[in-house]
């Protein structure tokens, strides 16, 4: 009888353990997969000695402190987009800042968590008086080109990423809320599309 009780307890315990393990596995989000997933492994410029920023600017520390992420150490900060932004790996994903020049006095910064999309975007108009708006963001190694489509037949802007970062300067006039779609052409011939809907509430 004792042996049977012990056996039942052992089976129940094993079933409970297996159920708990399955539940934990189900609750954990699957990591972004695929050759074009936006992860630091697919951002080759972040591993290239050629793009290392030797002198880390003070704004890097400011962004890191503000976002609560690790400050980039020596050889950890990389110049992407031909020098337009600087990026580094953090526990939040990849963080970058750019466009911050004292003369122009404006810049943006963000931290991008791993995602299955090959590109991400941020749309901005630097100043109230500026007529040029910009759509820019990270692009993984397999992205050949990025196309920004404006609403109301205002046309499209196509650009190529440089060191995992693209910058699409819109023609004079359209604002961030006039952007309707950002898409990427991938090395394998596929295309990634993301529709953007920005209601102009202001």
């Amino acid at each position, binding site marked *: 009888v004792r042996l049977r009780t012990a056996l039942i307890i052992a089976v129940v315990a094993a079933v409970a353990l297996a159920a708990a393990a399955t539940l934990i596995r189900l609750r954990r989000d699957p990591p972004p997969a695929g050759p074009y997933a936006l992860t630091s492994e697919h951002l080759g410029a972040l591993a290239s000695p050629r793009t290392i920023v030797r002198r880390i600017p003070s704004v890097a520390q400011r962004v890191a402190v503000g976002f609560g992420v690790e400050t980039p150490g020596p050889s950890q900060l990389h110049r992407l987009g031909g020098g337009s932004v600087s990026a580094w790996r953090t526990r939040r994903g990849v963080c970058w800042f750019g466009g*911050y020049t004292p003369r122009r006095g404006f810049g943006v910064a*963000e931290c991008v968590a791993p995602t299955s999309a090959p590109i991400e975007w941020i749309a901005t108009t630097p*100043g109230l008086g500026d007529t040029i708006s910009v759509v820019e963001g990270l692009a993984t190694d397999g992205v050949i080109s990025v196309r920004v489509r404006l609403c109301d037949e205002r046309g499209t802007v196509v650009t190529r990423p440089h060191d995992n970062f693209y910058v699409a300067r819109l023609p004079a006039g359209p604002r961030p809320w006039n952007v309707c779609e950002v898409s990427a052409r991938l090395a394998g011939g596929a295309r990634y599309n993301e529709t953007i809907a*920005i209601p102009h509430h*202001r």
Partner: protein
Amino acid sequence: MVLLSRRARPGVIGMAAALAAVFAAALMLVSSAISSQTYFSGTMSGGQSATSGSNYWSQDTVYRPVGNNFALWFGSGSGYTTNSGSNPFSIFGSYGYTQAHCQNLTGGSVSPVTCIAS
């Protein structure tokens, strides 16, 4: 007497200068103490915006779940920037004594949202 009054005048000026210095130091302390303001924290409904108090802000940041399109800007529209795919995101700017803004551009409520001006 003349000598005494001549000695007294620099004393008054000195005291005024010291008071001014103390006042300036206090002002600096106060301004550094309010160098960051969390001007929104909680659930933000679709289309809702929040505005900070006025200060010499140079950074505007929003934290919210990825996938929700939000906008940040200074003053009456300077540096208007939108994004949905990163968390957090910030804009930097030197627009003088101004307000910072944060807006939920989605059609529904988003939570949690934190908007910080610094």
